[in-house]
């Protein structure tokens, strides 16, 4: 077990700058998730840690050793691939034992480790089967088992759950979490699924276009996104955005556009002050909107035209238009409303986010 340190890491393909100045410290026993849309450089970063991709500039340390020039086999890592990468011509047992055989472990030790790993994963009955005789979930377990028997310093996961169907994915997610709890091995996990990232990660690294956008624990990303991208990426359904102008009215600040006029809460007036008279982006999560009641301050309410009603059982998602912008509001299933109605929505002023219109950074 070891920490992993990325220092000013860069990756250039011929004309493409895939990973840009990534600095990251992954603590011993920590589970860190790299998340972002496809092409954001997360997989490339992982492959550089694994040693499958050459580093253009910067440094990677595993433990206290710089591993830039070290071949993958000497880095003491284990990787789980998206398509499992099980050796089709070998039985499950041989698949799990292969890495140990290559490292010249003794027969008895190999058997012992395979036994322990298959016990943990509940695949003892499958040891003699070939990969093609296994279901997707079982293959995933074998791939995990192959990583576990090696007892490496770091686990690397490259979208290991994305080939599974939705139900199994949720189940394996929970098992992965338990497994990490039990083994405590440092893990770096790549996914494009923000739900996976939020549920699995001790810390989550959001990436876009090769840049790290924000690093933080899941709730921090959710509550205090560093910029508009992170705000929209984390959370499901994503945060609503509206282009507004910040207007000063005496001591108060108002965020206004043709469809709404919202009073900026006192707590952030000072921060937003320098932006008065300029354009900004207002952000509010669907779950922070509700049907306006008598208790709501008029300065936090606005009219919305209902366009689509999505009944999900545990909640209702209202797709509404507010002036020029469209929004989604998540309301309790007891709310009765129909398409094309106009309703009055209120927002939770404590949960308002503002982003610079040009840099998109949080204000």
């Amino acid at each position: 077990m070891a920490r992993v340190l990325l220092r000013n890491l860069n990756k250039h393909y011929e004309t493409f700058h895939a990973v840009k100045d990534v600095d990251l410290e992954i603590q011993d026993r920590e589970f860190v998730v790299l998340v972002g849309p496809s092409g954001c450089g997360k997989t490339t970063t992982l492959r550089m840690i694994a040693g499958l991709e050459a580093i253009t500039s910067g440094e990677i340390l595993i433990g206290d050793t710089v591993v830039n020039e070290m071949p993958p086999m000497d880095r003491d890592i284990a990787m789980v691939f998206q398509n499992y990468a099980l050796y089709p011509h070998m039985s499950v047992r041989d698949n799990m034992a292969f890495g140990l055989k290559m490292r010249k472990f003794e027969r008895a030790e190999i058997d012992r480790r395979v036994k322990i790993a298959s016990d943990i994963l509940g695949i003892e009955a499958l040891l003699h089967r070939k990969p093609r005789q296994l279901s997707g979930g079982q293959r995933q377990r074998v791939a995990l088992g192959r990583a576990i028997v090696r007892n490496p310093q770091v686990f690397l996961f490259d979208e290991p759950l994305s080939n599974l169907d939705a139900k199994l994915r949720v189940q394996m997610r929970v098992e992965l979490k338990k497994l990490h709890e039990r083994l405590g091995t440092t893990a770096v996990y790549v996914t494009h699924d923000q739900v996976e990232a939020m549920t699995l990660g001790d810390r989550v690294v959001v990436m876009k276009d090769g840049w790290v956008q924000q690093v933080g624990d899941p709730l921090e990303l959710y509550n205090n996104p560093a910029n508009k991208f992170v705000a929209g990426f984390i959370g499901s359904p994503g945060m609503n955005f509206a282009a507004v102008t910040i207007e000063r009215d005496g001591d108060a600040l108002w965020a206004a556009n043709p469809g709404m006029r919202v009073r900026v809460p006192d707590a952030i007036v000072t921060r937003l002050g320098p932006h008065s008279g300029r354009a900004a982006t207002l952000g509010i999560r669907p779950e922070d909107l509700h049907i306006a009641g008598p208790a709501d301050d008029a300065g936090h309410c606005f009219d919305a035209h209902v366009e689509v009603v999505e009944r999900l059982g545990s909640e209702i998602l209202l797709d509404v238009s507010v002036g020029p912008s469209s929004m989604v509001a998540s309301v309790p299933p007891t709310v009765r409303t129909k398409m094309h109605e106009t309703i009055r929505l209120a927002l939770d002023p404590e949960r308002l986010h503002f982003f610079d219109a040009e840099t998109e950074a949080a204000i």
Partner: protein
Amino acid sequence: MTTSPGHPATGPATGVARDDSEGMDYLMSLPRRTVTVYLPLLCFLIVLLFPFYWMGLTSVKPNEELIDRSLNPWWVVDPTIAHYFHLIVNTDYPLWMWNTMVVAVSATLLSIVASVMAAYAIVRIRYSGSRWVGGMIFMAYLVPPSILFIPLALVVFQYGLFDSPMALILTYPTILIPFSTWLLMGYFKSIPYELEECALIDGASRWQILTRIVLPLSVPGIISAGIFAFTLCWNEFIYALVFISSSENKTVPVAVLSELVEGDIYHWGPLMAGALLGSVPVCIVYSFFVEHYVSSMTGAVKE
């Protein structure tokens, strides 16, 4: 964070397994199947097997029947094995078979070993110009042997290999390697990259990856390359004709023609017997490996 079950953002990208036999329903009724499948198959079969029938027939016809025009040419009245007897006892035929076998097996082994390494290097080792090298190797396959044999003859003479089996064993790979390499390149490409990366992380060297992961998965591809190479060696005519002169070193295709035809006299019986016997080993090889051959042509590595 709540996950809203079934919401599009968390929804699955489920692939539905489909049966490719859809659209082949017209094969279900017998009359249709007869017209669309069996009849064309029958035509193929007749066209393909007729030469063998003719060879077999001629090889068991006594000489009198062979030249008698009044008899039914499609049948034999009084079959004989005299031609086979003559071929095996009075000529060097067993020796020619042995020569052909030695040359074909050696040249095939040599070519497959070279092709496996070349194809693997071109497909999986990243170096500048790998694509270019692959293209050039295939271009080499397009140069006809009937042009190459003149310069090759010079080389063979220079090295003192003329009229020895080595002349053929070393020149056949010039035809075999390009095609086998090209065929194996396609096969190696179908093996997922991740398997090798995984083996790399597991601690296997390049050589171990090749021998323990790639080769076991490429057996069908290697077999089909081997069958192709073996067949080509077995049937090869022009190099064998040019590079070998003495009867005891000849291979079957050349020997049958040069030793069993005297001037303008064609000894049809032994000639056909020799041709028929000569095609037996290739048939045996095919019958053993036909399933691998087909699977390597139609499918890739299944995980």
